[in-house]
């Protein structure tokens, strides 16, 4: 079966001979719940950018559902990103002054979904993350955890093949953070591939697969027992 995303001997070098990733190979299968963990400077952000097709590798190949990302034009790449990948950021990046439902509906804006349908699906997505009662609230009326749930709803509203979450609990207290992790686990159980990027080993330890980065290399790639993953 074709992996959702695959890195083949990927390196990324920034100007000034800074090697952020050094010959990394890995494959993420559909439905996996993976933590990419490492201290700051280990290449996590670069990994996120490459996995999310926001950047291209200096060497090696990134395959998104079997397609070579470096061969796609900006337009096709944007379309791929919009339809197949959902992003969740540490700072939420919600539009201020815009209701939760419209923030979520914007997740479908560039996918060619008509406006009425966007709002219907946004409502469903918000209900799915447990915010069915907060549809018309503006970001400043929501708590940190609720904001992150809105951002997650926006990321999954287009039913992407993969959800990339970059330190989603970084701006939240531990209880709220745990709630967000539970939500991601739930989404994964329902079939979404979830990649969680974090510096927090405790959070990583909660997930069935952990890829540990250090100085731009994968130093550990462990899967929990099958029973654990399937739970």
């Amino acid at each position, binding site marked *: 079966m074709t992996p959702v995303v695959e890195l083949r001997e990927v390196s990324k070098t920034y100007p000034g001979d800074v090697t952020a990733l050094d010959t990394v190979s890995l494959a993420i299968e559909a439905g996996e719940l993976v933590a990419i963990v490492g201290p700051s400077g280990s290449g996590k952000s670069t990994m996120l950018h490459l996995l999310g097709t926001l950047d291209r590798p200096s060497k090696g190949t990134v395959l998104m559902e079997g397609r070579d990302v470096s061969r796609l034009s900006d337009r096709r790449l944007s379309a*791929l990103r919009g339809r197949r990948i959902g992003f969740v950021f540490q700072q939420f990046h919600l539009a201020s002054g815009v209701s939760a439902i419209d923030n979520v509906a914007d997740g479908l804006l*560039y996918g060619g979904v008509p406006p009425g349908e966007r709002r219907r699906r946004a409502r469903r997505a918000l209900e799915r993350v447990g915010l069915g009662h907060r549809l018309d609230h503006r970001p400043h009326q929501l708590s940190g955890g609720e904001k992150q749930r809105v951002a997650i709803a926006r990321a999954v509203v287009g039913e992407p093949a993969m959800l990339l979450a970059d330190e989603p609990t970084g701006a939240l207290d531990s209880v709220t953070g745990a709630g967000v992790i539970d939500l991601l686990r739930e989404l994964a159980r329902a079939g979404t591939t979830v990649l969680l990027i974090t510096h927090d080993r405790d959070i990583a330890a909660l997930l069935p697969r952990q890829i540990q980065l250090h100085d731009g290399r994968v130093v550990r790639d462990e899967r929990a027992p099958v029973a654990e993953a399937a739970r």
Partner: protein
Amino acid sequence: MNRPKMRRGKHKGLPEVAVAANGPDDLPARLGPRDVLRVGAAGLRARPLRVFLSALGIAIGIAAMIGVVGISTSSRAQLQETLDRLGTNLLTVAPGKDFFGSDAKLPKESVGMIARMPGVLSGSGTGSVDAKVYRNDHIDAGETGGISVQAARLDLPQTVGLTMAAGNWLNAGTSRYPAVVLGSAAAERLGVATPNQQVWLGSQWFTVVGILESNALAPELDSAAIVGWEVAQSRLGFDGHPTTVYTRAKKDQVEAVRELLAATANPESPNEIEVSRPSDALAAEKATNKAFTGLLLGLGGVALLVGGVGVANTMVISVLERRAEIGLRRSLGATRGQIRLQFLTESQLLAALGGIGGVGLGIVVTAIYALTQGWPTVVPPWAMAGGVVATLFIGAIAGLYPAVRAARLAPTEALATP
């Protein structure tokens, strides 16, 4: 960077995608017009004060131009109204200079001859009287107030189209007695507001029987004291030679009559006759304002340019401030083109807001000015449409550079901003 390599690949015609290369699914969807507008307006809604101020710059420029065009159009409409009311078929005949450079005289019978010309509806005349008029007999002889004394035929009001502000015009009776009708300016200078007062005219008392309203086609009568033909001859030493003949021609024969007037008025020496059409002079006077209008339009253009620079400035700042939003939109699937379109739309909306506000402001300015002048308010539709189109153009120019910058921003760089 790998982007150039990718472009090269595209130009060589290499297949862009190994798997699932065809099908519309791998091309980005187009944004509908409503979405384009909504996304463009979203950036404006978040910063109302800044939007108001930069739109104001544009609005002032557009308002200045609309105001200039509107005021000059209204003034022309007023002129047209005046001419329609007064008629453009009035011709005047006056003596010029003879061969030796001294003042020529019109023959005494010229008024009658002109009135009998084919194509002439009516003819009348006035003659200058060598007399002065004063408020009373104690006024110093030098203080004439620039008022001329004219002898007039009784049919003068019908021919010129004079109307009375007060009292009556001369009649067969009063024209033989010391009675006078004052032009509006003359009445004001003599301090006469109502008829039946006495004025000191040619060293005799004359009774004011009427006051004229001013007439744009015969402004010379405004500052005249008008007496009857007979009394001027019997009491003021008037020689009976007319100095101005007023004539109304049939509308379709004005030019033909005009050509024959000189020869008719003075068959012996037609070269000593000056014929003019007062309505032409009125129109020409308005036309001299064109240079001034051009200057004001230019000033409005400069204001508009400054407004455009303001919009460009606002947009550059907006792009700098909204890097995170740009990054987010790219992660949501926006192409470079869609980011560019978003900021271009925003800039054009901003400028259009200013443009529509400016057109409104220009109309208000025109209306207020026209109201104070007693003109009709006319703002030509082409000026309004032109104003809005011009602002869309300015918005496009001003937004181009910021939009291109926003589109060029790498998504990773945009997302890295806190």
